[in-house]
């Protein structure tokens, strides 16, 4: 029985925090679906919150968008390959992840290669690579599953059908990303702000660039199954942009953006539950979280503009 059944927006928080209190006091009870959602989303928020700032700083936000599209091709082709080789019997999650990783790698290679060897504009190269690979993925999905909507599911994920194993994967991923960023905080900072300075210090820009790509790919892949790549994009960019309005210190940004992401996922899940219990509307929780992230940014921007305005008036 889900303890959140029929709960409104504020009741949700009351139940949520009382259950956390119970958990602290040692009264364990099975995680409910809503808590798993909050958990997974928070973990995704953490992984994205630490990787996102660097992606935006290095102007790779649209590349993350590209990755999020091409992963579909990797997953479909690994699925086809696995079912062709082993008749689908040996097919499991790790095959999918390998396929996604290969696709992410190929995307990076193609995008860079088109710019370097074929002398294409960088933006055009990003656009050409991901649209064509994604189109290929969609055609394969349609041919194989006879259903084009698997592609839709891939893009948007399904937050409403998460299970505990997803939580475990997301938690591992969050820990991994946070650890790597914490370990290489300095070099990442130097590389993303001043690559020439990094060169004089003997820091390999290429290595950290690829490491960042790798982290972005793992975030996309890890979140693909649980929450969908769209949500990942929002989590990568949104909290960072919001936090950026209030702080310009990278260390603070790296703390603030995961926190904002976690807050957004809490509010999003509560809102989704509220709509379900009060209006009987089962909406896509992932989409609601994205909307909340967008709302955060708009509110923060308005708040800041008003504050600046008042500040100017005060001094005038």
């Amino acid at each position, binding site marked *: 029985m889900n303890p959140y059944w029929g709960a409104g927006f504020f009741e949700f928080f009351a139940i949520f925090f009382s259950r956390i209190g119970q958990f602290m006091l040692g009264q364990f009870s099975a995680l409910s679906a809503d808590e798993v959602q909050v958990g997974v989303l928070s973990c995704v928020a953490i992984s994205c919150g630490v990787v996102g700032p660097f992606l*935006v700083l290095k*102007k*790779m*936000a*649209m590349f*993350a*968008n590209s990755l999020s*599209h091409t992963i579909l091709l990797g997953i479909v082709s690994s699925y086809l390959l696995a079912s062709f080789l082993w008749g689908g019997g040996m097919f499991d999650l790790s095959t999918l992840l390998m396929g996604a990783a290969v696709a992410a790698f190929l995307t990076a290679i193609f995008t860079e290669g*088109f710019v370097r*060897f*074929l*002398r*294409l*504009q960088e*933006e*055009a190269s*990003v*656009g*050409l690579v991901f*649209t*064509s690979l*994604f*189109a*290929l993925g*969609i*055609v394969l999905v*349609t*041919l194989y599953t*006879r259903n*084009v*909507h698997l*592609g*839709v599911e891939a*893009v*948007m994920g399904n937050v409403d059908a998460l299970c505990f194993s997803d939580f475990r994967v997301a938690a591992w991923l969050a820990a991994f990303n946070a650890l790597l960023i914490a370990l290489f905080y300095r070099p990442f900072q130097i590389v993303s702000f001043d690559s020439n300075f990094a060169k004089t210090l003997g820091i390999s820009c290429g290595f950290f660039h690829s490491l960042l790509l790798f982290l972005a790919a793992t975030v996309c892949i890890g979140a693909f199954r649980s929450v969908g790549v*769209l*949500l990942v*994009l*929002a989590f*990568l*960019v*949104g909290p*960072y*942009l919001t936090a*950026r309005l209030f702080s310009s210190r990278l260390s603070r940004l790296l703390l603030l953006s995961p926190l904002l992401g976690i807050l957004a996922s809490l509010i999003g899940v509560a809102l989704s539950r509220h709509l379900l219990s009060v209006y009987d*509307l*089962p*909406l*896509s929780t*992932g*989409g*609601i*979280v*994205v*909307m909340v*992230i*967008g709302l955060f*940014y708009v509110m923060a*921007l308005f708040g800041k*503009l008003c504050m600046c305005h008042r500040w100017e008036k005060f001094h005038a």
Partner: protein
Amino acid sequence: MSFLDFFTDPVLRGPTWGTLLMCISSSLMGVVLFFKKRILLGESLSHATYPGVVAGVSFFAFFFPAHEEWTFVAVLGGAFISSLLGLKAIEWMEQKGKVRSDAALCFVLAVFFGIGTVGASAMQLAIPVWYQQVQILLFGQAATMSDSHIILYAVLSSAVVLFITCSFRPLQALLFDRDFAKSAGIPVLFLEKMVFWLLLFSIVLGIRSVGVVLMSGMVIAPVIAARQFTHQLRMVFFLSACFGALSGLLGNILSVIGSSYFSFQETLTLPTGPMIILVSASFALFSLLFAPHRGWIFRLSRMVFFRLRCLQENILKALWRNGSLSFLDLRKAHAISSFSFRLALFGLSQEGWIEKKGGLFSLTKDGIQKAESVVRLHRLWELYLARALGFEGDRIHRNAEEMEHILTPELERQLTVLLANPTADPHNQPIPQKERGL
């Protein structure tokens, strides 16, 4: 089903003409975006249409449930409004929020698509039949287009074509030098506004046949292909429209034929969008690789031939200096693979410049002349550097080592006149005369 049927058959002609017209307008607008270096704007704007599509279809479902054939008007209207909002949001973020353009694009894309997802999930239970219509628009389904679509599409894409032909000159000025255009009295702001309105039009038109998710590909790929073949803006526009039209046509035909080919057990409709994108992306890839002058293969082969010629000329010089040399002696001076070395030697003997006698290579009469001309260029350049530009020492030799391969007969003539037909270089080596041996 013959090829002409696609244009005349009452069922087939709708999708064919619709896709064709839509692809022309989006690939024309792609050219503008490409030269403004904002090509990914198309990606964000096409995703931003999604909430509008959802809202438009739901609006129609609630108020005019009986007139299903007119849904596309609501779809177009909703998509237009929401992508306009997306555009405004991007501009606003970039100007007011001081956000970098790629982050703004990515953020707007994600948030708008998120809003659309929420709306679609609300539709899924409330009005499932109409929900299917929205889902089709994600990846495009040209098959159900009718003649009324064609008329609308024709009007809108001829507006795009008309705008570009009428305002070609000012547009050109705007694309390449905005400040110049402004100072020349061109209404820059008005033109930019028009460009964005037409861009929105063409994207909104496109979502029917290419789909919300892939629409940006149709903006990007044709102009990439067109840019490879020409550097005249007029021709880029023209070629881009051609590539766009061709890929729209082929993609549509492939999707029709493919659908009937693969539907052996159950009906399967290949979505039109991905097919069109695949066709246009392969055009782009092909032109990136094989286009004359700018294509990769062309540039690569030019480089390889130049390197080979340099190597050959260096071999000739070495033989000219040393009389005859064995293969190993020749090879010692050049750090290059054995294969290309043999290739260079083979080329030289084919030209009749060198001959091999008892394991030793030596120059023929023609070869001597050729080698002397290379040496002459080298020493002329050395003299020019020393006398006219005041270079000294070792630098002139190294520079001349490169220039001897690049100097053309025309330049040689000019140098000869400039230096008053010299006979010795700065190192007091004789400069071989041009007409010797004739």
